[in-house]
């Protein structure tokens, strides 16, 4: 009886150590995946901007982001863009992409405007607020960066 008790306590003790090591390993792998993927997406190469902005003939503004997963776990990269003019959100959009390890993908976010909005934006160029977030470990851990471009007049 005592032997069974000792063995079960030894097994429990080993499982506690193993669980601790497993959590630490997943933590390290997640940080590595998030850092490498976010850095890879933010710095696509020399002379290249992370987000490409185009205006289509229909008057849509298209934001293109090339996302990469340089890590060891699957990631979800989310791009959120807001156009702010006179302290009001004129347009906003959000797009996400799931990438397996060593996979690359493209995120295209289209923002459409009405004629009156276009005229207003031409008068007062908007401030672009973007946030890029990468999540991993079943989307439970994440890292992101947000910034603002242009000046709201």
């Amino acid at each position, binding site marked *: 009886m005592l032997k069974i008790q000792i063995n079960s306590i030894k097994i429990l003790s080993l499982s506690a150590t193993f*669980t601790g090591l497993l*959590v630490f390993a997943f*933590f390290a792998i*997640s940080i590595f995946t998030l850092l490498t993927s976010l850095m890879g997406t933010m710095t696509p190469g020399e002379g290249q901007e992370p987000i490409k902005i185009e205006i289509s003939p229909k008057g849509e503004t298209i934001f293109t982001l090339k996302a990469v997963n340089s890590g060891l776990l699957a990631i979800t990269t989310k791009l959120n863009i807001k156009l702010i003019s006179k302290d009001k959100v004129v347009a906003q959009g959000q797009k996400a992409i799931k990438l397996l390890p060593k996979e690359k993908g493209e995120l295209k976010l289209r923002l459409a405007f009405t004629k009156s909005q276009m005229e207003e934006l031409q008068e007062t160029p908007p401030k672009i607020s973007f946030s890029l977030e990468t*999540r991993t470990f079943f989307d439970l*851990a994440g*890292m992101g960066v947000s910034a603002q471009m242009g000046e709201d007049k």
Partner: protein
Amino acid sequence: MKILKALLGAAFYIVLFVYWPRLTLTNVPSDILGPLGPVENILMTSTVVGIVLALLFVIKTLTAKQNPLNLVVLVVSELVGFYVFLFFISFGNPINFGRVEKAIPIGPGVTVKFDFRIFVQLTLVVLVFRVAVGILEFYNVRCKSATGNITK
């Protein structure tokens, strides 16, 4: 032999938490460490933690396994370990519980966000598990000692 083990363990904690942070952090440019808060605060916390962990290790090594002090030291060590993890993962502000948003001085309105709440929760689960196993081990050793199966 026990004294040697206690001294070596204590030296390990002192090197890891007192000497090593001083050696590395003082060589890192302050604008990189900016979002982490003042370097002095980090060094102070790390020094206190190092000394506490070294003392706890010495007490744990030098006391008998059936001594209640051994169990108390085990629980306190686990709690201090969890606090250290929480302190560093929350960028020096444990109340954030692993979710941090910091402005960085590389451009206007540039902020970075970190969300590691899941690892804080998992570490908390591991802490409870390890403390529970520690209590079971302690009672097991006490039972064996009471029935005369173990000598001091």
